[in-house]
């Protein structure tokens, strides 16, 4: 069963086309990674899914067409989008960021439990729970962005370059956490990355975009073994 399905999606900004007939699927409980160089259309793909750009084609969440819904309605249906540059609420506290992440939910008691779970996953956020999110380091903000996306209890989590600008050791921690989240909660993920190595390690499926078209798709293992991909994205 596919949680998320894109069928021949084309999108652009004004008259400038960016995506051409992109199709991809994210299976229930799986992690898919979307690779590609700068400007390949990765971010636009995520923005189309969460209703922030117009598109042609079809985007389905649990088989339901999302056409015509605004970003807030799509979020309430269960898509959590962690934008590039993190998009935390900088003048809210860390804890309020997590609380507001659960906006679509009404189960107050469970929300408190889930906040604790985020703190267990990212202990540094617990230490800084009363601080304004704007005062966090880049790595902490990224953890907060992931934590906030989790609080939505999403059907699928979209993450845009979660490793961007982070120190290698922090990137390792973050990907460990993402893998743990996927394994323990079964949250499906679609991760956009330029830094392909780690993403391919935790992913089940992989897609490669080049100038707006899908040029390769398959299991993460197969894509990682592809000679062209190794040369272009894996650096060996």
């Amino acid at each position, binding site marked *: 069963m596919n949680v998320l399905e894109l069928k021949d999606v084309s999108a652009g900004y004004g008259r400038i086309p960016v995506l051409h007939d992109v199709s991809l699927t994210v299976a229930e409980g799986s992690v898919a990674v979307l690779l590609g160089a700068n400007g390949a259309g990765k971010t636009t793909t995520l923005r189309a899914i*969460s209703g*922030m750009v117009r598109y042609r084609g079809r985007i389905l969440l649990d088989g339901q067409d999302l056409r015509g819904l*605004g*970003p*807030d*309605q799509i*979020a*309430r249906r269960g898509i*959590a*989008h962690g*934008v590039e540059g993190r*998009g*935390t*609420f*900088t*003048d*809210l506290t860390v804890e*309020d960021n997590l*609380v*507001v*992440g659960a*906006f*679509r939910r009404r189960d107050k008691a469970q929300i408190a439990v889930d906040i604790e779970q985020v703190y267990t996953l990212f202990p540094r956020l617990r230490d800084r729970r009363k601080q304004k999110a*704007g005062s966090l380091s880049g790595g902490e903000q990224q953890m907060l962005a992931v934590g*906030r996306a989790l609080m*939505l209890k999403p059907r699928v989590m979209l993450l845009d370059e979660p490793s961007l600008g982070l120190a290698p050791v922090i990137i390792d921690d973050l990907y460990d956490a993402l893998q743990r989240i996927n394994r323990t909660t079964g949250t499906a993920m679609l991760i956009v990355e330029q830094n392909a190595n780690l993403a391919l390690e935790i992913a089940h499926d992989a897609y490669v975009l080049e100038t707006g078209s899908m040029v390769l798709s398959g299991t993460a293992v197969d894509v990682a073994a592809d000679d062209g991909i190794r040369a272009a994205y894996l650096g060996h």
Partner: protein
Amino acid sequence: MQYFFQQVINGIGDGAIYASLGLALVLIYRTTNIANFAKGEMATVSAYLAWQGISAGLSPGWAMLIAIVLSIVIGIVTYLLIVRPVQYKDELTIIIVTLGLFLAFNSFSGAIWGFLQMSVPSLFPQANLGIGTFRLSADLLGTIAVLIAISASMYGLFQRTRLGIALRASASNATSAKLVGIPFTAMMAAGWGLAAGLGAISGLLVAPKLTLDPNMMGSIIIYAFAAAVVGGLTSYRGAVVGGSVVGISQALSMAYLPWLGSDLQILLPLLLIVAVLVAKPEGLFGSTVVARV
């Protein structure tokens, strides 16, 4: 000394009014990033609505309550019809639009209710409370009580409720607010509605003290802006402190600088605005906006 403190107390009473209107300005600025110059004129319309209710035979309490509710509706409609289409235009456009709203509401009051001065009864009794040698009027205590009630409910709303946190999140980051499922336009409209309700309360506090005419809030709005700017235009606490500072300094200047005359008293809040902006451009309580690149 006794005279001095009596002036300070009177100043706090006026300051509470500036603070309540200042809170409305801060609320609009924080939710929609707009300095609403029409806030005072909207409050005047609210006061007229209450007057209309009282003339129609309603008790002052009910008339005022209905006026506040209607004002909230007017605030929401104003946002949706007029402000929303220009919200993301450049600042000059927005300033012109709010100045247009100022003229529109001002003319609306004049056209419907005329320019004759009318009186609105105070909700507070004409009594005085003497503590030692000080005289505290019921009006003064009532005004301060209203401000405290407003501040406490705003604090409760923003810190403790789902709507409050959604409002704060929308003000902080519009895109992310939508991405967690917050209906953003509804939040903006709610911000304008709440601010219109607060403005209505300040209009209802002012009307019995002055007389009701379309230009009633003309100088009050300037004092309220002074209060809000002292507080950085982004801080609710700042608006309350700023309102008191402006009210007290105004009362003291009237008492000790009588040669300024009533027309020049308005210089004082303006000097305060300039002094604060020169010394601390982000306001005494404002937080500096740091852009992360």
